């Protein structure tokens, strides 16, 4: 099946205010989609819907034609990522542990950390997540998502609050994931990121696909 997401007349309402209205939404396997639009146009809301963290007030959003929510095929990187009070190693491998995986954690950790541009993975593994800089946190959080090898990777302004080097590392990591066939939906204000990652653009706040 080639279709990942399919949605019709999706509406999300918070406290009586409509924050998102989309007549249709489609995402295919391997596709890259950029969500743009002004603040409050519903980019983050749509990402949460796509991550199945919440349900739309109206309409429906189907994953691969229906069935259960694909909690384990889709993952979302929050705009300001949250890391558990624990080591970097545990934060990156947490999703795999939750799936019951016990073998190959070290290899998965190293691969994910390399992907986000950490060369000295041994030194990073034992560090406390709270001792990291903002850019490092963002990259560790992304590594935790990449380690899951998701079918759909959702990113909420992944480079908006990090330093230049971290931003470059993040772009490289996401590009590699795209090349490997991962579907990516990302929200951004940043022209540079749009140029770097490309993909179809969905301008929110107008309610239609461009």
């Amino acid at each position, binding site marked *: 099946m080639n279709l990942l997401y399919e949605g019709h007349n999706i509406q999300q309402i918070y406290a009586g205010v409509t924050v998102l209205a989309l007549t249709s939404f489609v995402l295919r396997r391997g596709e890259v989609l950029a969500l743009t639009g002004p603040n409050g146009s519903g980019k983050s809301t749509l990402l949460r819907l796509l*991550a199945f963290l919440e349900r739309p007030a109206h309409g429906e959003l189907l994953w691969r034609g229906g069935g259960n929510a694909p909690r384990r095929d889709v993952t979302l990187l*929050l705009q300001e990522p*949250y*890391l*558990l009070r624990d080591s970097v190693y545990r934060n990156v491998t947490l*999703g795999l542990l*939750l799936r019951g995986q016990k073998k190959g954690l070290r290899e998965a950790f190293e691969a994910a950390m390399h992907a986000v541009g950490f060369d000295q993975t041994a030194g990073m593994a034992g560090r406390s997540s709270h001792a990291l800089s903002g850019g490092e946190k963002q990259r560790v959080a992304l590594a935790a998502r990449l380690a*899951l090898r998701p079918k759909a990777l959702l990113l909420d302004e992944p480079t908006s609050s990090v330093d230049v080097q971290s931003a470059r590392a993040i772009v490289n990591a996401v590009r590699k994931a795209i090349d490997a066939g991962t579907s990516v939906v990302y929200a951004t204000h940043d022209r540079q990121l749009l140029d770097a990652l490309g993909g179809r653009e969905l301008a929110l706040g107008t309610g239609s696909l461009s």
Partner: protein
Amino acid sequence: MNYFAQGFAKAWELLLHMDAATVSAIQVTLGSTFCALCAALLLGLPLGFALGYCQFPGRRFLRLISDTLLAFPTVLIGLVVYAFITRRGPLGEFGLLFTVPGMVIGQTILALPIVVSWLAQAVENLDRRCRQTLLTLGATPRQLILLTLRELRFAVAMIGVTAFGRVVTEVGIATMLGGNIRYATRTMTTAIALETSQGEFGQGIALGLVLLLIAFLVNALLVILKRRGRT
């Protein structure tokens, strides 16, 4: 000040030559406190988590009740439990009055609101991104609860130590439900109350110092655990 000099000297003596009565009082104190703490955590952690995490009608009211129970006078807890577990009470057939289990029931009720209210507060204060992150990494509902508690482990440890301190220093419940029976239900605090009522102030202060030492060791243990868990 004479009492303090006397108390310190006797405390030394007590620690050096542990007599059977003191050892028994320490054991009863630690044993009953530990059991009450375990029971309160076992009951209170799920309750507190639900109260802080789930949204349901009446939640605020339940929080209010739990917060009010934090001020439940220990003598009243003792009295209410007494009425239940006396031979003539509804639970009389179990013969719990003047036993350690009877005491543990009262102490559990004392510790429970601390666990419930404080955990609910800690869960409410926890960043909502924590929940979103755990969900988006694929946590099942059960994993979500366990990992949230793990994320709150320092708060939980703090709650445990607070509840421990409240129970271990409590005297009203221990006296009413335990009966201060030597070698059976006499705790450090009821022993102190007894020594005081008999005018043995020095001995009372000595026992108090030993109790403080125990509390110090428990807190030191927590600091060590915290340091190890921080990596």
